[in-house]
């Protein structure tokens, strides 16, 4: 054991560096790091919405598992508590306006705000109808409620306004709150903090759970939650669980394998040195460049176990009898250097993929590889005693079979040709076009979200219209014009539905009859009805007062938090201008909408699904282009390092491995995502090591060839034991990477054997 003291000391130093480093590194797990960069105005808008849009700040709660009365009580108690909580901009559960100050303000402005205020509503016959309605209401058991508004607002302008607001949700009201089938009470809460503010979102989720617990839910009742805070937490939990499982299993399996291969537990410690150094370097570099490290990038970094443990294995296994480890390191360094350089060249496209998350993965892996290679070359020989770690020879039959593979080269080439032809004939692998498939959020969580959204009546937004204007007033006017232009064919939700432009407010007031006319018409309308002459004086006084009121503008909404929260998602500052959103619901005919929008100047139509798919396609295309660049760089490096012919042979082994991998993925029914593509690049880097080391033995004897084969087999098995496990992960990025590299590594190994130069002496 003493002989390994230096090794253990080095490991101890590295181990203590981890907590030190992690204290300064921010770990993140939000999905937007894996969203591509925008290229058009539509995609820029879409990405901004996905990152910071109102939808990202919306938490939806469903309460079920108890009688409707209990659910309603819980919903109300929760709404009261949450409204008082500074975390939320808006809490809605279907109950009426809670804020009396706001109700008074809106009541005073009703003739400017209500869509029911048209000149027609104040003609004598219309007034007669309104008065008969008031009488009918007074007759009913709801008379106290009717009387509260009827004499100041006989035409019902205020109630029509509130009804119009409620119309946005299609969920039924029961016991005074939203109640979906089940029964399930529904509650919406919009956070003040952005959807990406993970901590604030988690605090919001905690506040919701607390409010639920304090509402004393009966036994059996359940709280269902969905929203960005939940997504972040669930995604983080999934990634964490995946990473823990994979790293634990990998450790056990790889450790067991190395113990068998090198007849000593020390090999695990040897492998750990470059791995730890590589991980530390990856963390430090990514944190320095990006300011934070994505959880999935870290998870991916852990899988570098499969890549960088190749290096110490190659070093120890390639040592000839009697050779010092230092000499071995010097001898294999040109090959190792070339392998690392080529692998880094293969990873470079990840940096340019446009997905910050993938760029992190690439940077993490590249820095880790370089650090691990340097550690293998310079650090390990100094740490290890010279004569340690004898390698168990490979089973002879296996070695013979593999070393004889080059004799079957023709067959392998034919096989590759057939697979290539089949791929061309079937049109190649199917590409994934759904952004949701890339989300690290577990599917059950997304399904629940869809269900809750449907129940609160949030329409499936397939298209968003947007426009920009110099001022809030101009944006509201433009939204009104656009909504009018589209009104015939589409139902459109927009800010001016809640807060009309000042121009519209003035126009409504101006279109009302003057005081004397209104008084006269009211007197005629009253004829024959039992109302006293003075009964509607409050109405006349309010109309007169409304003429003197200044229009309500977005700046005046401090006293109307409910209205402010309603228009916030639909109208907002955008730089030094204003942006308005218009949401068409139930779009059945996208082509008709496209045509209609084209007729409205300044209005931009963003088709969410199509735009998302275009974004993905653009980025997949970019990844492929950069992949080609990476491939060219690899070829160039190989040609320079090995000469044209040998370089070509290695390149063929790699290309063949990629071909077989994608053919296998297609056969498995996998839709190819950007993660498969970038994993393939990584695979190319890993597979190259094999081809390089297998062909290093071109001018060497059998013993050295067997050592090279043994080292590469060991590398492959450890890689399979790590990446193979990744394929079992639930997180799409890890799963795709694992599957691709697992299949690819096996193919790359066999091709490296088959395409290695033939031995001078047959075995």
């Amino acid at each position: 054991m003493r002989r390994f003291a230096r090794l253990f000391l080095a490991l101890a130093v590295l181990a203590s560096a981890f907590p030190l480093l992690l204290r300064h590194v921010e770990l993140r797990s939000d999905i937007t790091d894996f969203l591509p960069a925008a290229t058009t105005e539509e995609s820029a808008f879409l990405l901004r919405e996905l990152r910071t849009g109102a939808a990202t700040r919306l938490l939806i709660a469903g309460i079920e598992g108890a009688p409707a009365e209990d659910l309603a009580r819980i919903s109300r108690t929760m709404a009261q508590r949450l409204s008082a909580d500074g975390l939320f901009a808006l809490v809605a559960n279907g109950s009426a306006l809670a804020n009396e100050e706001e109700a008074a303000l809106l009541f005073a402005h009703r003739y400017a705000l209500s869509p029911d205020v048209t000149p027609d509503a104040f003609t004598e016959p219309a007034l007669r109808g309104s008065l008969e309605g008031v009488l009918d209401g007074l007759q009913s058991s709801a008379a106290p409620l009717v009387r509260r508004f009827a004499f100041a607002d006989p035409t019902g302008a205020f109630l029509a306004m509130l009804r119009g607001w409620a119309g946005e949700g299609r969920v039924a009201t029961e016991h005074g709150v939203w109640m979906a089938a089940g029964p399930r009470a529904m509650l919406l809460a919009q956070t003040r903090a952005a959807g990406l503010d993970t901590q604030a979102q988690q605090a919001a989720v905690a506040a919701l759970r607390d409010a639920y617990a304090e509402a004393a839910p009966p036994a059996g009742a359940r709280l269902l939650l969905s929203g960005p805070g939940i997504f972040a937490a669930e995604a983080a939990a999934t990634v964490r669980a995946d990473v823990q499982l994979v790293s634990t299993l990998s450790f056990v399996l790889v450790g067991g394998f190395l113990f068998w291969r090198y007849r000593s537990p020390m090999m695990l410690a040897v492998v750990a040195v470059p791995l730890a150094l590589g991980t530390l370097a990856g963390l430090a570099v990514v944190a320095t460049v990006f300011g934070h490290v994505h959880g999935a990038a870290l998870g991916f970094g852990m899988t570098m176990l499969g890549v960088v443990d190749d290096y110490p294995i190659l070093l120890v296994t390639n040592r000839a009898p009697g050779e010092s480890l230092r000499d071995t390191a010097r001898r294999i360094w040109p090959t190792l250097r070339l392998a690392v350089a080529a692998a880094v060249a293969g990873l470079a496209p990840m940096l340019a993929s446009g997905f910050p998350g993938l760029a992190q993965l690439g940077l993490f892996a590249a820095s880790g590889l370089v650090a691990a290679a340097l550690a293998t070359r310079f650090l390990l020989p100094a740490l290890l005693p010279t004569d340690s770690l004898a390698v168990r020879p490979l089973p002879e039959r296996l070695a013979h079979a593999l070393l004889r593979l080059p004799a079957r080269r023709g067959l392998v080439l034919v096989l590759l040709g057939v697979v290539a032809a089949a791929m061309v004939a079937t049109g190649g692998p199917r590409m994934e076009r759904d952004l949701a498939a890339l989300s690290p959020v577990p599917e059950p969580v997304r399904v629940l979200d869809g269900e809750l959204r449907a129940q609160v009546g949030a329409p499936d937004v397939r298209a968003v219209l947007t426009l920009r204007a110099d001022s809030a007033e101009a944006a509201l006017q433009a939204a009104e014009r656009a909504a009018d232009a589209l009104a015939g064919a589409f139902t459109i939700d927009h800010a001016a539905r809640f807060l009309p432009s000042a121009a519209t407010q003035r126009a409504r007031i101006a279109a009302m009859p003057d005081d004397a006319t209104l008084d006269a018409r009211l007197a005629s309308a009253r004829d024959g009805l039992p109302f006293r002459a003075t009964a509607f004086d409050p109405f006349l006084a309010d109309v007169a007062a409304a003429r003197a009121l200044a229009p309500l503008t977005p700046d005046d909404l401090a006293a109307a938090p409910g209205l402010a929260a309603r228009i916030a998602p639909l109208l907002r500052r955008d730089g030094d201008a204003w942006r308005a959103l218009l949401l068409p619901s139930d779009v059945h005919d996208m082509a008709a909408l496209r045509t209609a929008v084209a007729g409205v100047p300044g209005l931009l139509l963003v088709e969410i699904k199509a735009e998302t798919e275009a974004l993905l396609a653009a980025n997949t295309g970019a990844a492929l282009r950069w992949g080609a660049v990476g491939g060219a760089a690899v070829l160039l490096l190989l040609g320079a390092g090995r000469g044209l012919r040998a370089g070509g042979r290695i390149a063929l082994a790699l290309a063949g491995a990629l071909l077989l991998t994608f053919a296998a993925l297609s056969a498995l029914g996998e839709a190819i995502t950007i993660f498969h593509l970038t994993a393939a690049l990584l695979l190319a880097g890993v597979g190259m090591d094999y081809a390089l080391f297998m062909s290093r033995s071109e001018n060497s004897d059998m013993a050295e060839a067997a050592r090279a084969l043994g080292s590469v087999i060991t590398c492959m098995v450890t890689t399979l034991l790590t990446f193979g496990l990744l394929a079992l992960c639930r997180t799409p990025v890890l799963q795709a990477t694992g599957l691709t590299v697992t299949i690819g590594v096996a193919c790359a190994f066999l091709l490296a054997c088959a395409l290695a130069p033939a031995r001078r002496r047959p075995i």
Partner: protein
Amino acid sequence: MNIAGRHQKPGWGFRGDSPPPTFLRRALLLFPLTAQSADPLAAVMAALAAVRSSRATFVEEKEVPELDRPLVSRGTLAWRAPDRLEKRTIDPAPELFLIEGDRLTLERPQRGLRETLSLDTAPELRPLVEALRATLAGDIATLREHHEVRFSGDTTRWRIVLVPRSLRLRGAVQRITLEGSDGVLTVVETQGNEGRTRLTATPVP
């Protein structure tokens, strides 16, 4: 005290399917009550509590300050112990006003209106509902919880005046006067800012 047990007793009247009680049966019923006439309110409450279900027709006159004549409506009432009270207006416009347990339902088919609400959500409504319901149930404790209770008259011809304890509610409804004889409630008069509403019930024979 519920000597009548599940037997049907006069409330607003008898159910159509039950025979009118004989004089003897009524005398038997009232005997224990008159025996403790030291507290006539308790006796009235006991008589009311003994009525498990009843039906009546009603005429309601509603005076509203802004109107120069009262609004009149007619319909039927139905009570079923312990907590179901139905007021069905027939004229001039059909309406159903139903209180059952904690739930209040208002239906006006001509207007396509149907609303359900929980009394818990409307604390200002509960005293008004209990003024009627707790009286019919003979539940003096609930009645006192929401109102100050004044009793006058005797068991055969009584008057209960309720004044809401909630100051807020008293701002809208100052007084509810209930009149009746034995276990039958015949008049409900509500005095509030809304004006005065007088409901007269006639038991269905």
